[in-house]
């Protein structure tokens, strides 16, 4: 980040400073002087001298500006009440707003004419008073504060308040229509926090650490970890932003002078990846979609040896073709904790290549690859029309259009992707990226870089929707990219929808982090420092590590159009569960395997007498977990069809526990390549909630249950049915060696 070094602004201050800004390039700083009066210094192209504004302060001031030419300053008086002074062309007198404060006030404003003031009361709780044409009474917002508050607003109707808790950690409470509960943001802070925001969805919080240095934590779709900004500060910091990519912080140094450090990220362009369906109105071909199609035409016309060509870029994922000399082909990372980071890097460089082609052709300079959020109801769950039109508006062939059988016929006919394929709840409910145990968590198992790290290392998001969407969009594969492009990793990136699919997966990674509740990226060096090779828009070789892609906005300069504004409160069941003391234990299993050929299949499980007590105890009211395992799966090829897996009780009531997709199986079957666990891999599904629901409905009998498999097929649009020639055919078989139930 572009942080400038500390500079001294002189003076002798006897309180923490306050800072406000009414416009780009304008800063106003306030602090108490040695005479206990309020002093003021401002920046407007250059720094002014200090001026006294009088009064007798018993706390640090708080300041905010609701618009050009307006400043409101607050402080505690000798009577412990809140006092207020404002500038509106000239300085007003001090006015008392009452109350009994035990800390300095903090203030923010979300619009002209609106002020929100916060302070700690005699009960150590947070108290709030606001101005909206007239002053409200004080209201308590609870909590037990061990510091003064910090407050900021990024837009109308939004307030974020911060303070130290009894554990010295930073705590956060926010208003977004109503007040959300306190959440801990961790750390050990030794001063009141200061907060700033340069725009919607962005918060920067500052506080002194135990080392007296300035520490910084920020929210940009999700919370990023504490970073030290150094220095030795002797008061609480104040922070303000005058516009995007600019933050100014001030605090007293050991010499009692005011010190200033600022961030200037100007020049960093922020690209916005937009939802494909949002680019379908009013015309099928929005300038972004059209630019994408035209750029693909350009890339497809380049020779295969050109690193910026369509086939070369697709080959980096995987390819049937022999790689051009030195090309990093067949590098895609699946079934591992590198799945998300590798595909983020891959998509990032692809996007740069496409953007250059777009700009070279005179297209929009802010081009970013769109994403397709297929987890929405009709028509969002159908393929965007620009990918179903055979020609572009200029009459040329549309490269976004891929005819059946290279893309699923039902999809091209406007069919809906079923909800079981696009369900993200199971992945989002995971709280650990890569747990050190048997289950692979949100992001995948801890394996070294591998093309396919083994299905046991399949992360929840990679499993569904990623792996399920591939064959569902592709359909049955044939030959070397003759059919079902998306189904075969060696052909998938040749279908333009691949890039929208992966942009969506990348977006869901950001959204998962934003859910909070302990969700975080791995911090192990093995994940952060693993390096992967790509080609940039000039065809040059470039390498990137996981540590360089953890913050897509700050590090890679792109955001999604729906970047989550804040962490919504998590229901209690999403609290991280501790690592179980004992490994999951086999409780029931099928006696024989089954062969799936596109028809629904029901598999009864044998529950030995010795397991019933264990099932009663664990899958009863206890804290245990239940897993459905689908073991020893083998297939010659991916049938281009995924299966939904259901756990059914004795009465036939059933619950969806997950999906099976064999994405990558034909590459993994290759006996001449190292692919752990194939053939004979397994899928593991957490069925704890499913069992609990069945039990609550009285449909759970621990001695009699079945697991059913149902093919995931594209459904006709609402109110329609498929013509006879679209009836499902038998597909290539999948052999399932065993279905089992484990409890932990």
């Amino acid at each position, binding site marked *: 980040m572009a942080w400038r070094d500390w500079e001294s602004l002189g003076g002798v201050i006897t309180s923490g400073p306050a800072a406000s800004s009414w416009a780009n390039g304008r800063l106003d700083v306030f602090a108490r002087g040695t005479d206990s009066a309020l002093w003021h210094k401002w920046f407007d192209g250059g720094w002014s001298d200090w001026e006294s504004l009088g009064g007798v302060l018993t706390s640090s001031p708080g300041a905010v500006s609701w618009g050009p030419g307006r400043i409101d300053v607050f402080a505690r008086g000798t009577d412990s009440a809140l006092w207020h002074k404002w500038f509106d062309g000239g300085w007003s007198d001090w006015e008392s707003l009452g109350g009994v404060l035990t800390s300095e006030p903090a203030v923010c404003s979300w619009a002209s004419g609106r002020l929100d003031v916060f302070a700690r009361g005699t009960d150590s709780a947070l108290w709030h008073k606001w101005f909206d044409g007239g002053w409200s009474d004080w209201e308590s917002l609870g909590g037990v504060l061990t510091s003064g508050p910090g407050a900021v607003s990024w837009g109308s109707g939004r307030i974020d308040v911060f303070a130290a808790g009894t554990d010295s950690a930073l705590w956060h409470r926010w208003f977004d229509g109503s007040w959300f509960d306190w959440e801990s943001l961790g750390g050990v802070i030794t001063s009141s926090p200061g907060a700033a925001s340069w725009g919607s969805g962005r918060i920067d919080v500052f506080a002194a650490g135990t080392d007296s240095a300035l520490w910084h934590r920020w929210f940009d779709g999700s919370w990023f970890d504490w970073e030290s900004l150094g220095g030795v500060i002797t008061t609480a910091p104040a922070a303000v932003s005058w516009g995007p990519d600019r933050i100014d912080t001030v605090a007293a140094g050991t010499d009692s002078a005011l010190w200033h450090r600022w961030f200037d990220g100007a020049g960093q362009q922020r690209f916005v990846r937009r939802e494909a369906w949002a680019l379908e109105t009013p015309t099928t071909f929005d300038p972004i979609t059209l630019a994408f199609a035209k750029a693909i035409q350009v890339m497809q016309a380049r020779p295969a040896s050109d690193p910026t060509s369509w086939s070369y870029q697709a080959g980096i994922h995987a390819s049937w073709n022999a790689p051009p000399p030195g090309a990093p082909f067949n590098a895609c990372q699946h079934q591992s904790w590198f799945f998300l980071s590798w595909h983020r890097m891959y998509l990032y460089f692809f996007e740069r290549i496409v953007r250059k082609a777009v700009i070279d052709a005179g297209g929009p300079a802010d081009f970013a690859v769109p994403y397709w959020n297929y987890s929405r109801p009709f028509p969002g769950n159908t393929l965007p029309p620009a990918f179903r039109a055979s020609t572009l508006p200029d009459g040329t062939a549309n490269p976004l259009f891929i005819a059946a059988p290279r893309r699923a016929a039902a999809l091209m006919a406007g069919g809906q992707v079923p909800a079981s394929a696009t369900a993200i709840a199971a992945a989002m409910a995971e709280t650990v990226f890569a747990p050190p145990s048997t289950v692979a968590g949100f992001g995948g198992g801890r394996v070294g870089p591998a093309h396919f790290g083994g299905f046991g290392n399949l992360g929840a998001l990679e499993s569904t929707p990623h792996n399920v969407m591939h064959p569902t969009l592709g359909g049955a594969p044939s030959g070397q990219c003759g059919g079902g492009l998306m189904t075969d990793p060696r052909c998938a990136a040749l279908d333009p929808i691949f890039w929208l699919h992966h942009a969506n997966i990348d977006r869901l990674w950001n959204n998962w982090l934003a859910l909070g509740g302990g969700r975080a990226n791995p911090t192990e060096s093995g994940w952060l420092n693993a390096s992967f090779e790509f080609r940039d828009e000039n065809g040059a070789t470039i390498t990137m590590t996981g540590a360089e892609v953890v913050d897509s906005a700050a590090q890679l300069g792109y955001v999604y159009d729906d970047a989550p504004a804040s962490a919504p409160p998590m229901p209690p069941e999403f609290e991280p569960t501790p690592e*179980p003391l004992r490994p999951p234990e*086999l409780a029931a*299993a099928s006696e024989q395997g089954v062969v799936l050929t596109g028809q629904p299949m029901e598999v009864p499980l044998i529950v030995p007498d010795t397991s019933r007590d264990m099932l009663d105890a664990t899958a009863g009211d206890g804290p245990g977990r239940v897993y459905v395992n689908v073991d*020893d799966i083998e297939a010659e090829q991916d049938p281009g069809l995924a299966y939904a897996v259901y756990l059914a009780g004795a009465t036939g009531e059933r619950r969806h526990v997950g999906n099976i997709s064999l994405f990558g199986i034909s590459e993994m079957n290759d*006996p001449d390549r*190292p692919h752990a666990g194939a053939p*004979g891999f397994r899928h593991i599904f957490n069925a704890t909630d499913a069992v609990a629901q069945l039990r609550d409905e009285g449909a759970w009998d621990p001695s009699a249950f079945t697991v059913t498999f149902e093919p995931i097929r594209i459904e006709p649009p609402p109110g329609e049915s498929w013509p006879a020639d679209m009836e499902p055919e038998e597909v290539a078989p999948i052999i399932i060696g*065993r279905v*089992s139930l484990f409890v932990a």
Partner: protein
Amino acid sequence: MTPAAPGTRVAGFRLRETLAWRPEWPIALLVALAWVLMLAGIGATDGHGDAVLTVDHAHHGQGHGQPSTAGPTPLDGLPGWALMSIAMMVPVTLPAVRHVGVNSLRIRRLRGMATYTAGYVAVWVAFGAVVLGALALLRSNLVVNERLLLVGALVVAAAWQLTPHKRRALFACRRTVPLPPIGRRADVACARYAVQQGMRCVISCWPLMTVMAVVGHANLIWMVVLTALIVAEELPLVGWRLSTPAAVGLALAAGLVAIVP
């Protein structure tokens, strides 16, 4: 993997919890025992398939190639070979033993792991019978230059490292078979899994074990070096990269044996 246990828990409890994640520990203990016995010299043989500490052979130390009517049969070396197979070849299959343990009902866990291990060792004993028999036949009918025999075994081992058969066998090391929960089917599946893994392992390591047959089980240095190589090669996803360096090492060893007096 080990849970963070509160301080009130005793060490024994933590050990039990740790072992719960490692159900294959009894078999690992068996491997350790085999190594102790090998180190103690029990079951060792000289380079000619003759048991050293178990039978006092009349012709021991005499020149070979003398047909012996009352001498030992090559199969006398089999118990020692079996012990060596447990010490050298079971470590690489411990992940498979764990797979059997984790995927068996608690009451059948030990039985399943024992069935698997017995089947797996049986494959190696069968291989041992063939190799020891062939060597004995060779030595009893021809005047064999032992040094040349070892050089030949090392050259074959080096060459095998580079074949696609070796590579495929390594890549297949995590392949499993379905394990039904109860009844005879469960036992049969464990045995089938053992034979499948044993055969795969024989394809991968037969020349290395042939080297051991030539130098004799008494040679602990060869045992340690080759066991380390075999275990490292079987590490999933990365071990196969050792094949070529190992081939070079084996070829160098062959050269050394040939020239060093």
